[in-house]
């Protein structure tokens, strides 16, 4: 089996899907790319058993066949070539691979393509189409809030709820929660599933920058979701489990409303948090009248910071403690000039949202919730 391919094109495509490769695999075949040649098209796949990504590359060939190629070796080699045609000569019988470039020849040994895990096929699933911009935005708003706890796998993914009214994306790590709703992107049927964060991160990185809008086709059933766009296909196993009832923990009555300039608030917290304890990053917010006091201290080093910024506040005076990391992440992921922080009690969640003025009819709704720390005074 022989084919000729542009070195930079192949390198670019392999780089984009290489994110799925783990550094230490239990199965050696997972360190390989699967090459499937079918006349003038090459399909390269990478898998970690949970997620499989494949991309197609144009080649020149008359043959058909498949072989698994050591990924690291190939990636490292391709990176060093300037743009030029490369000739791959692959022997599917004794698994020898020979690459010829302008400079010379390189030989490596592949593996039998049968060893490569079978790529699941979605049968009897539903499908929908979605704008790439919507998906990119939904992912960038939610992914940061996912958890990392192996004991609670459902929180290591993003919950996607589809209905004929719109779509909802939810992520939480039990300390913070983000709910992103779109009313302008709809599905035909009602469904909900949890997609692990690794393939979503991968997807976010593969998808071209905003501005270049295209449609993404999504297919799903009980166990898998399948994304396809342009020359890329991504299929991943869904997280099996019950997502916590997030709506029940979002407080409905929040009488204390704080309007504040987002950039000023973010910068204030960034500065003050430098003086907070390096492990717990806790800051204290104290609102009295129209003044917001932000303070932090690290008793171990006798560090202390106090700042005050003006805000627009309705409600009773309140003193509430937060992990500054969470606040910083959230404020950085909001876009408007002004944000609204709604609170009810020092032991109950604070809710951050964007203040959009009159032009609220853009079909999206973003809610960020952060749990406070238990202050005892």
């Amino acid at each position, binding site marked *: 089996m022989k084919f000729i391919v542009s070195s930079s094109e192949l390198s670019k495509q392999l780089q984009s899907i290489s994110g799925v490769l783990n550094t230490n695999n239990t199965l050696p075949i997972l360190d390989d790319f699967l090459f499937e040649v079918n006349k003038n098209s090459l399909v390269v796949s990478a898998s970690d058993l949970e997620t499989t990504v494949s991309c197609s590359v144009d080649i020149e060939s008359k043959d058909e066949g498949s072989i698994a190629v050591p990924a690291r070796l190939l990636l490292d080699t391709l990176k060093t070539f300037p743009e030029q045609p490369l000739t791959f000569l692959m022997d599917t019988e004794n698994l020898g691979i020979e690459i010829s470039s302008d400079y010379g020849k390189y030989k490596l040994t592949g593996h039998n393509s049968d060893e490569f895990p079978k790529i699941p096929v979605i049968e009897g699933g539903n499908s929908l189409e979605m704008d790439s911009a919507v998906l990119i935005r939904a992912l960038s708003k939610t992914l940061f809030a996912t958890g990392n706890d192996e004991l609670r796998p459902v929180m290591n993914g993003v919950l996607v709820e589809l209905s004929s009214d719109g779509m909802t994306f939810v992520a*939480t790590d*039990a*300390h*913070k*929660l983000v709910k992103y709703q779109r009313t302008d992107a709809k599905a035909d049927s009602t469904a909900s599933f949890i997609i692990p964060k690794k393939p979503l991160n991968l997807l976010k990185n593969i998808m071209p920058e905003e501005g270049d809008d295209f449609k993404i086709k999504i297919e799903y059933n009980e166990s898998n979701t399948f994304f396809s766009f342009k020359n890329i296909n991504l299929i991943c196993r869904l997280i099996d489990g019950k997502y*916590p009832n997030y709506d029940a*923990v979002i407080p409905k009555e929040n009488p204390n409303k704080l309007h504040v300039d987002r950039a000023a608030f973010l910068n204030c917290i960034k500065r003050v948090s430098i003086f907070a*304890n390096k*492990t*717990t990053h*806790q800051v204290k917010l104290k609102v009295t009248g129209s003044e917001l006091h932000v303070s932090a201290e*690290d*008793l*171990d080093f006798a560090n202390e910071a106090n700042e005050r910024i003006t805000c627009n506040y309705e409600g009773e005076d309140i003193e509430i*403690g937060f*992990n500054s990391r969470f606040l910083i992440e959230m404020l950085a992921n909001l876009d408007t000039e002004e944000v609204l922080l709604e609170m009810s*009690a020092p*032991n*109950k*969640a604070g809710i951050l949202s964007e203040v959009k003025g009159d032009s609220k009819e853009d079909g999206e709704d973003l809610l960020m*919730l952060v*749990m*406070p*720390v*238990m*202050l*005892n005074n």
Partner: protein
Amino acid sequence: MYNRAIVHIDLDAFFVSCERLIDSSLNGKPVLVGGTSGRGVVAACSYEARAYGIHSAMPMRMAQQLCPHAIVIKGNGGTYSKYSDAVTDIIKEHAPLYEKSSIDEFYIDVSGMDKFYGCYKWAKELRNTIIKETGLPISFGLSTNKTVAKVSTNEAKPNNYMEVAQGVEKPFLAPLSIKKIPMVGDQTYKMLQGMGIEHIHTVQEMPIELMERLLGKNGIAIWKKAQGIDNTPVVAYNERKSISSSITFERDTIDIRKLKDILSTMAEKLAFYLRNGKKLTSCVTVTVRYSDFDTRSRQVRVPYTSCDHTLIKKVIGLFDLLYNRRVLARLVGVRYSHLVEGAYQINLFEDTEEMINLYQAMDKIRNRFGQNSVRRVVTMDTRGVGMMSNPFNGLPPVIPAHRRA
């Protein structure tokens, strides 16, 4: 003249001295302070009692056999703390930099005071002030570093003082027994003695490499101390790295329920200290000592917390893993370590508002009406789990003399 001058102050037979202040009829008699039950040990003994061969950490029974007419007092930690604090206050008033290294010991850094006053003279005056104001007998040693100062205090005792000037540290240490070096415990002493090392001058003449081969890193430390080298600074603030609680039973027990109740009590109490000190723990350790002194402990890392309901569960879980010998237990203990400053991060799904409010209410009640005013039902029956004041006040834990390493 000193480049560095360190004074080590030690209150002689501190617990006994306190008892004598309360009851002067004890003066001049052999007095023992310590546990009076079967398992009790001598925490402090008067110099009259020492004449009978009694020393601290000796089982109380043995001490009573040695000196049947000795007066035994159970002792009261609270009273001793009060006297200790009184001494601390005097030192705080006079000393530029001091370290309270235990309930009855202090280090004071008086470097540079020579220039104006004289370190020795200053220390003597401080001693007189303390004696005058508290009535407690006190000894001190003055030297160039903490180790030599401490050794010289021990040489000066009782109720006396001593100076080891700069340059004569080594000859001062040379004739003393190696046992006098802080750090050389029974085990090390026996080992060195077995090799014919009896006096510090032998260690002084040994090559450092040999000590390292014998005792590892500790060997180097002991060798340095033997040379009179010790650069450790006087640290004013003592940061707690862990808090723990343990109990040795009057009688060994195999009553699992009782053991678990006691562990729950300790877990609850320590968690309260954490919350009061605005601390969180991320490592829980449980220790069990069986009746044959076989001591086992197990630890587990947890997400930062200060909530008893999670910590008690962890403690009981560890105990279930640990206690598997079906042998009587002599001691159980709980320790929280890897402490950080901070308040508990409330969990969105696992914690309810009621739970958090309950913690705050309980802590409020405890701070107002005492630690035992509210407690869990399982912990109602357990008594004798040690109480302490705020463990995060920057002072060292109150460890009686006999438990010191």
